[in-house]
C-alpha cells in the first residue's frame, strides 16, 4: 500500500513542477508593476526603481526563478508584499477556513446529489427523473457569485434567518481554541455548543451556495453510472436470486456505480476550489481564495504562487485519497498495485 501511495505521489511530481513553472511565468506576465504599486501614491521614478531592486524585480526571469525555487525547497513561500507576512503563515491561518467551507459544500452536495442521482436512475424516464435533472441542472446554471448574493438577500436581508455575511463568526463571538482550525470541530472539542452553532450558522449559506453549484455533475454521474449498473447482468442475477430491492440497489448496483462517481468528485473538487474564490468574496470569508484574489489584483506574486501551489497539493492529496478509496471500493484496483 505504501509503495502504491509513493508511486502515485511520484506521478504527481511532474504536474506539480508544471504548476510551479506556469504560475511563476503567469505572475510575471501580469501587467501590474508591483514596484510602482508599493512605492505609493507619490513616488518618484527613482523611488520606484529602488523598490524594484529591493524586491529583486530588476533581475532576469531565470534568476528570479532560481531564487524562487531555492526558497521553495526550504519551504519558504516568500513574503506577501502587501501584508508583509510570510505566505506560509497566511496560508496556514486561512486554509482551514477555505477547507472547512469547501468540504462542507462538497459534503452537502454529495449528500443531496447522490440520492437524487440514485432516485433518478431507479425511476428512469419518470417525472422524478426529469425533475431531478432539472433541479440539478438549474443549480449549475447560475453564476456562483449570483447564487450567493441571492441567498444572502433572501435568507439574510429579507427573511433574517441567516446571520450577517461577516465571515466565519459574527463580530462578537470569539473563535474556539485552535486544534484543527475547523471551527465546527474545534468548538465541539472545546464543548462549546454556542460557538458550534454560531459557526455552523455562518457556514450554512456559503456552503449551500457551493453545494448548489456542484449538484449537477455529481447527480448526473451518479444517475449515469447507476443506470449502467442497474442494466448490468449481475443486477439481473441478484434480482433473479430474489434479493430485496434495497440490497440490489445499494449493495449491488450502487457500490459498483460508485467508482465513476468518486472519479467525478475529484473533478468537482477542483471546480469547487475555483468557485470557492468567488464565494469567499461574496461572504467576506477569510479564506485563501479571497486572499489570492486580492494578491492577484495587487500583482503580489508570492501569495498567488503560494495559493496555487497549495491548491495543487490539495488537489493531488485529494486524488490520492480518491485512488485509495478506489482500492477500498474495487478489489480489482487493489490487486493491480
Amino acid at each position: 500500500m505504501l509503495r502504491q501511495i509513493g508511486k502515485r505521489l511520484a506521478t504527481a511530481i511532474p504536474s506539480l513542477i508544471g504548476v510551479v513553472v506556469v504560475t511563476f511565468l503567469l505572475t510575471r506576465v501580469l501587467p501590474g508593476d508591483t514596484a510602482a504599486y508599493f512605492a505609493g501614491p507619490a513616488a518618484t521614478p527613482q523611488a520606484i526603481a529602488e523598490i524594484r531592486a529591493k524586491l529583486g524585480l530588476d533581475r532576469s526571469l531565470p534568476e528570479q526563478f532560481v531564487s524562487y525555487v531555492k526558497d521553495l525547497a526550504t519551504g519558504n513561500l516568500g513574503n506577501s508584499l502587501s501584508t508583509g507576512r510570510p505566505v506560509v503563515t497566511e496560508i496556514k491561518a486561512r486554509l482551514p477556513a477555505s477547507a472547512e467551507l469547501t468540504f462542507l459544500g462538497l459534503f452537502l452536495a454529495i449528500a443531496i446529489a447522490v440520492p437524487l442521482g440514485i432516485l433518478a436512475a431507479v425511476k428512469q424516464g419518470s417525472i422524478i427523473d426529469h425533475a431531478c435533472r432539472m433541479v440539478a441542472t438549474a443549480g449549475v446554471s447560475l453564476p456562483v457569485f449570483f447564487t450567493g448574493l441571492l441567498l444572502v438577500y433572501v435568507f439574510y436581508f429579507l427573511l433574517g434567518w441567516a446571520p450577517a455575511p461577516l465571515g466565519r463568526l459574527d463580530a462578537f463571538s470569539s473563535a474556539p481554541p485552535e486544534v484543527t482550525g475547523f471551527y465546527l470541530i474545534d468548538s465541539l472539542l472545546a464543548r462549546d455548543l454556542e460557538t458550534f452553532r454560531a459557526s455552523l450558522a455562518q457556514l450554512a449559506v456559503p456552503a449551500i451556495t457551493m453545494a448548489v453549484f456542484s449538484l449537477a455533475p455529481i447527480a448526473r454521474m451518479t444517475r449515469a453510472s447507476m443506470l449502467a449498473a442497474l442494466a448490468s447482468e449481475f443486477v439481473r442475477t441478484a434480482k433473479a436470486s430474489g434479493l430485496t430491492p434495497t440490497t440490489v440497489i445499494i449493495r449491488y448496483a450502487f457500490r459498483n456505480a460508485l467508482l465513476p462517481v468518486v472519479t467525478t468528485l475529484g473533478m468537482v473538487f477542483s471546480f469547487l476550489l475555483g468557485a470557492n474564490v468567488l464565494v469567499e468574496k461574496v461572504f467576506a470569508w477569510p479564506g485563501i481564495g479571497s486572499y489570492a484574489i486580492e494578491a492577484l489584483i495587487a500583482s503580489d506574486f508570492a501569495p498567488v504562487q503560494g495559493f496555487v501551489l497549495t491548491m495543487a497539493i490539495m488537489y493531488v492529496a485529494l486524488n490520492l485519497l480518491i485512488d485509495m478509496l478506489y482500492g477500498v471500493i474495487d478489489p480489482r484496483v487493489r490487486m493491480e498495485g
Partner: protein
Amino acid sequence: MSVAATPAPAQASAAVATLKHARYIIGENPVTGVAFGIFVLLALAALIGPFIVPFDPLASDTAAALNSPSAKHWFGTDQLGRDIFSRVVVATRLDLGIAIFSVALVFALGGLSGVAAGYFGGWTDRVVGRLADTIMAFPLFVLAMGIVAALGNTVTNIVIATAIINFPLYARVARAEANIRRDAGFVQAARLCGNSEMRILLGHILPNIMPIMMVQMSLTMGYAILNAAGLSFIGLGVRPPTPEWGIMVAEGAAFIVSGEWWIAFFPGVTLMLAVFCFNLLGDGLRDIVDPQRRT
C-alpha cells in the same frame, strides 16, 4: 473526397432520417424539447437580435434611469437608463460567440490531442496526460483569472482562458473514447483497407467519438458562459459598454439589496436559461447524433 462515393440522395435521406429522429427524441423527451426551443430562440436572438430590439442597447437616457419593467421597457432600465431588454437580446450574440469559440478552440486543442493520445498511446499519451494533469491541478477559475489578468481582458483572451481550463476535460474524454476504439474491428479493417494512421484517426475514430464530444461540448458551452460571468464579477470581463450577460448580472447584483431587482434578474434568468439549455441539450444531443441508438 470519400463522400464522392456516396450519391447525393443517400445524404438527403440520411438528413431526413436525422430530422425525423430528432423530432422523435424531442417528442419522447419533453425536457430536451424545451431546451431545444430555448436554443432556437437564443440562436434567433444572436442572428437577428441587433436588428429587432426596440432601443439602442448602448444609448443612455438618464431621465429614464432605473425604471422598473414596463410596457415601454419590458425588462426595465439600468443605472444609465439603457434598455435592459435590448441589452439582453443583443448580448446573446457575444455570449454565444464566447461559448462557441471557446468550445471550438478547446475541441481543437483538447479533443484532437486527446484522440491522438488515446489512439497512438506512448509518448503522445504521456505528454498530453501530463499537460492535462498539470492544468487540472490548478484551481481552474483562478487559472482563468490569471490568464485573463496576464493577457488582458479582451473577449479573445476570455475565450482562450476558458478553452485552456477545459482542456483536461476534453483531452480525458477524447483519450478514453479513442483508447477503447484503437483496436476495434472497424479500425483494424480500416488499416487493412490501406488507410494511413492519420486518416484512421481523423476519418474513422474522430467521427465515432463525436457524439460523446458533442455532449461534452454542450455542457462546456454553458460553463464557458458562467466562467465569463465569474470573470466579470471580479472585473476581468469584457469591456464596457458592450452588453454581456455576465457583466450585467455582476453589475446588477449590487442593485438587488436596494430593490432594483430587474437589473440583475433578467440577464441572470437569460444566462441561466442559456446554460440550462446547453446542459439539457447535451443529454438530448447524444440521443440524436448517436446512430447506434437509432433503429
